[in-house]
């Protein structure tokens, strides 16, 4: 997301209309990020509001020469990670699947050929259900990877974690979801 430097400059002078413009620009992005993390509307709105207040209170320390989006994203990610809520964790089921004899091309092409909306909804439902059971950090790495489209290195920079830790977290999170999907598709 590109934000014009002039808006930020106006925000730094506490221009009300500039803040309104900036926040409206980020409304959908921020809400989706928060919703993907908490998976419920009320918590997502609460976190988004907290992020906006933090941005407002800290805009004076932001360097206009730097890109705004990574700064905003870091505040949003940290606010999500600090958000406390009772969470339950699930265990991993390790059952193996079915037999087939398709070629590499057929296997790779298959997921994009799925046109059944019902199946899509079911898979989405399985992801939603199990996403809530993942550890908060695991959920966040998945969001940064699939919602933000960041590379492993970029995720490590946002979370200030070693690259190896980020890779392990993504691997574990994906593995849990993969096994759940595998079980559901049997």
């Amino acid at each position: 997301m590109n934000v014009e430097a002039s808006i930020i400059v106006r925000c730094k002078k506490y221009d009300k209309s500039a803040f309104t413009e900036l926040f409206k620009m980020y409304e959908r992005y921020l809400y989706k990020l928060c919703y993907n993390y908490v998976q419920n509307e009320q918590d997502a709105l609460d976190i988004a509001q907290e992020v906006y207040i933090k941005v407002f209170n800290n805009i004076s320390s932001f360097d206009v020469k730097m890109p705004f989006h990574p700064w905003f994203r870091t505040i949003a990610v940290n606010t999500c990670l600090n958000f406390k809520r009772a969470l339950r964790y699930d265990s991993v089921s390790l059952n193996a699947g079915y037999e087939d004899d398709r070629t590499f091309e057929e296997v790779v092409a298959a997921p994009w050929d799925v046109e059944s909306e019902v199946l899509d909804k079911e898979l989405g439902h399985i992801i939603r259900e199990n996403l809530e059971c993942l550890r908060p950090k695991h959920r966040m790495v998945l969001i940064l990877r699939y919602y933000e489209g960041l590379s492993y290195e970029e995720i490590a920079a946002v979370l200030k974690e070693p690259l190896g830790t980020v890779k392990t977290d993504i691997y574990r999170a994906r593995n849990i979801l993969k096994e759940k999907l595998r079980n559901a598709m049997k």
Partner: protein
Amino acid sequence: MNCGFDREIIQRYADNTIDPLEFIFLKEHINYCGECRKELDMVMTLENELYKFFDDDSKIINLDMNITRLVDDCMYELNKREKLKYTLNRSIEFGRKVADNSLKFAEYIPGSKFISKGAKRAASLTGNLMKSLVKKEVEKLLTNLW
């Protein structure tokens, strides 16, 4: 999962970070290994589903975060903080001025110069006395050590 093939290669294919050589290995392997074919199938399905899931817009159809009110509240809080800061600064400034004026007034009290000189001399004498005492004690300690 007993074929011994490195499953990381399958994930690297999904991540689009696979080496050309690894890609050739993977392609060959998938054509005869059912286990890895299933794994690739699952990895690709999950990748696809995760992208779709996180990009789903259906949850924000009626989104209204009432941003105008939020900004108004932030501005109100900011003004409150600024007013408090201003009042505190004014109080500090006033206190400093009162102290300055009191000192100026003290200069006109009869005998104030004599008292000031006396106080300075007393401070200097005390300082010298302390220095000599410390010096003596240190010397004593060093002698005991040797």
